[in-house]
């Protein structure tokens, strides 16, 4: 009875995916984000001391940032550090087609979450889908939306457990809901250092010598972690599959094939690698075939500077 799903009885994991601490990956985050998160973590760990001072650790955080910047990974890492399960709430399981059903689903979700022992962290991804700004209602649908945002507001406030919300559109969130969250972390696109680490992680078991990795990371400036992961995984896929289907496995054609199939979203800007394609200096400096990571483990900075590195410095950098 799919059409009656709004009323289907569900356990807490009917509202999303339940992630356990052991499934968490180590995030790769920029310094300010790490500091903010560590501060919050220390605060939660110091709950007893805070209670003596009549304070409670903050329990509600809002992560904002562009798509693919690792908001879910970040939240999952926090949950794993605390040793708690995290429920990734799916908006489509909350928003119902019948009048009043969305509010009812929100209520049920919070009721179930309150009963969980040990507690569960509610991670509400795409939070802008639920906590939409309220405005004067001109139609029944708008009235309905205002009413569920009111419900959300109350339930968020009353909930004693951890709530982490994530959004790509911080501006779409209702101001009153926003105010209920007392930790706001903006997850930015990764910097050069983080990009190198991300590429390194997802290229494993292959790897790149230090200088070449640096150049590739530079050419990925403005790319999100998710995009770089796709890039690294596509490269690995090409290396595994390519010889089997007898593709041209020379460096440039391989890179061109890869880039053709992975595109950054037009709004987030094209990293240099995508603008230049296989002609990019980072590609020219890339050893081919790609070495395995353990072969270059203790590789010092290459003595012979790769060709084209000067060119990289001269290229106009994005602001």
């Amino acid at each position: 009875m799919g059409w009656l799903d709004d009323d289907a009885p569900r356990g807490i994991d009917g509202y999303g995916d339940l992630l356990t601490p052991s499934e968490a990956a180590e995030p790769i985050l920029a310094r300010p984000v790490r500091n903010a998160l560590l501060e919050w973590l220390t605060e939660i760990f110091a709950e007893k001391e805070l209670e003596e001072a009549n304070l409670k650790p903050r329990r509600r955080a809002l992560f904002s940032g562009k798509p693919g910047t690792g908001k879910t990974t970040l939240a999952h890492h926090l949950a794993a550090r605390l040793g708690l399960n995290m429920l990734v709430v799916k908006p489509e399981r909350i928003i119902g087609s019948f009048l009043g059903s969305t509010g009812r689903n929100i209520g049920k979700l919070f009721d179930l979450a309150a009963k969980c022992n040990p507690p569960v962290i509610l991670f509400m991804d795409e939070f802008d889908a639920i906590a939409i700004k309220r405005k004067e209602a001109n139609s029944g649908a708008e009235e309905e939306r205002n009413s569920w945002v009111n419900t959300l507001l109350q339930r968020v406030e009353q909930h004693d457990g951890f709530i982490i919300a994530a959004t790509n559109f911080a501006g779409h969130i209702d101001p009153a809901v926003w105010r209920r969250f007392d930790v706001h972390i903006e997850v930015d696109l990764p910097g050069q250092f983080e990009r190198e680490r991300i590429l390194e992680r997802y290229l494993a078991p292959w790897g790149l010598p230090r200088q070449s990795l640096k150049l590739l990371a530079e050419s990925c400036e403005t790319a999100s972690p998710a995009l770089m992961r796709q890039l690294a995984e596509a490269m690995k896929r090409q290396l595994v599959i390519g010889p089997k289907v007898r593709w041209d496995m020379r460096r440039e054609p391989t890179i061109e094939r890869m880039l053709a199939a992975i595109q950054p979203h037009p709004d987030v800007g094209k990293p240099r690698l995508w603008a230049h394609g296989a002609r990019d200096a980072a590609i020219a400096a890339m050893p081919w075939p790609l070495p395995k990571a353990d072969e270059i483990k203790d590789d010092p900075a290459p003595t012979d500077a790769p060709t084209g590195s000067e060119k990289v410095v001269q290229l106009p950098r994005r602001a």
Partner: protein
Amino acid sequence: MASLGKNTPQTRELTDVVERIEKINGEIKDLQEDRTAVFAEAKAKGFSTRQMRRLIRVRAMKPHDHQEDEAEYDVYAHAMGLATEPPLLRYMAKAGTDTAVRDQVIAAMKSFVPPYGKGDITVTMDGQPVRLVRDKDGEVEMLDVEPPRPAKNSAPRQPRPKREVPNVDEDGAERLGVLYAKDNRPVIDNPFPYGDPRRARFDEGWRRENGGDGMGPDDED
């Protein structure tokens, strides 16, 4: 109607109809006498006239009407406190312990199995459920039913204790964190549960030894 006088054609017609009815009445009387004779004959052989009449009545009804009638009577009887345990239930209760009766019951159930693909009958007696299913050729198969598994995702998964929580004090937990960091094990391998003060101390120890915050590699310079 035209006038009904003596010797009119209508009068002759009327006489005709009346005589026919009288003839039929005579035949009915004869047949009833025959019926009485048959009953008497059966009674002489020792059959109960009353039960025979009841059988004849039931046989005259449509089977569905009869079932409805019976069910309705059961409800009324039960309401009046007249109902005793129906024989079928007594039979079924016996089937719980008597293997032969159980097999009979299952055999009887076979004829009620819906057509292929339309459903099945599960009979549970003496603890072991048996599923009766009709296959494509219309033959009834008997399958043993696996005991139902707990429904997946029905209850929130709790973090399974990956290992025993080490029996150490808070300082011990911190030292354990240091050991984990030295062994290059991730900070989220923390063996202490949420809310345990030792979890925080472990985290602290790990961070002190590692020099980082457990959120990825540190800037080199």
